[in-house]
């Protein structure tokens, strides 16, 4: 077993464990902090895949922005008594069984694929060609439509979220 595999196993176990803690912990705030650890683990997995750009983007966007937004929302919507009650529904075992069955199905289905056990070798240093990625994003033969639509989507999200979140002052009475 190579050093990289040991690193992978440690990171994967930590990631999955903290993923379980995200859905299992009773305090919402703990759940959010475990989420940060999960996201960090996923970022390290990206780095072991030699997708350095996305590993950093994962830290930047998910940990630096999305999880902070989630924590802020938790603080906005928190009720004092919240952390005492169980956070899952009464029949929680049913989703658990479903998730386990789904995992079994996916794993079993994937195992029938012939390349399933293929080794991922170390890529040459220029494999993650950001220049090619960047020019494909604005190339009409490439992905310029998703690129522009992404900006419209972000605009729509911004406008919609501000419209919903900012209180309208005239509705006081």
């Amino acid at each position, binding site marked *: 077993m190579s050093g990289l595999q040991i690193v992978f196993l440690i990171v994967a176990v930590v990631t999955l464990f903290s993923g379980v803690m995200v*859905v299992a912990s009773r305090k919402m705030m703990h759940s959010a902090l475990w989420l940060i650890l999960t996201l960090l683990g996923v970022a390290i997995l990206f780095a072991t895949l030699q997708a350095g750009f996305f590993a950093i983007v994962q830290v930047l966007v998910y940990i630096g922005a999305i999880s902070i937004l989630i924590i802020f929302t938790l603080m906005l919507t928190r009720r004092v008594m919240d952390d005492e009650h169980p956070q899952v529904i009464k029949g929680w075992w049913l989703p658990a069984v479903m998730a386990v069955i789904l995992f079994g199905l996916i794993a079993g289905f994937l195992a029938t694929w012939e390349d399933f056990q293929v080794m991922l070798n170390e890529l040459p240093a220029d494999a993650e060609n950001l220049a090619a990625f960047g020019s494909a994003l604005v190339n009409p033969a490439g992905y310029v439509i998703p690129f522009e639509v992404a900006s419209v989507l972000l605009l729509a999200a911004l406008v919609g979220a501000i419209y919903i979140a900012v209180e309208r002052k005239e509705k006081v009475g």
Partner: protein
Amino acid sequence: MIPLSWYLIAAAALFCIGLFGVLSRKNAVSILMSVELMLNAVNINLLAFWHYHTQLQGAGQITPQVFVAMVFIVAAAEVAVGLALIISAYRRRETPVVDEMTLLKG
């Protein structure tokens, strides 16, 4: 040199954990957090296959990268609007718990 299967299994497990969270948690914010877990699992898969295809066909596999970037954007938009909705609903109903956000029940 890690087998592709390890990544796929880890991603599947993370996805199922997220699915369990979506189905079983009461609080709307933690449902969104579970959705984030599922999206992350998808991204692990996409990048694992990016690595796999780069290994097979050489550098310049753009499509998986574009997919991952779009997943990031969609996640950001989803979180922004979703959390705004939760805040708005909380302001009216004083609860972040999904089961208590019943408008149509008599």
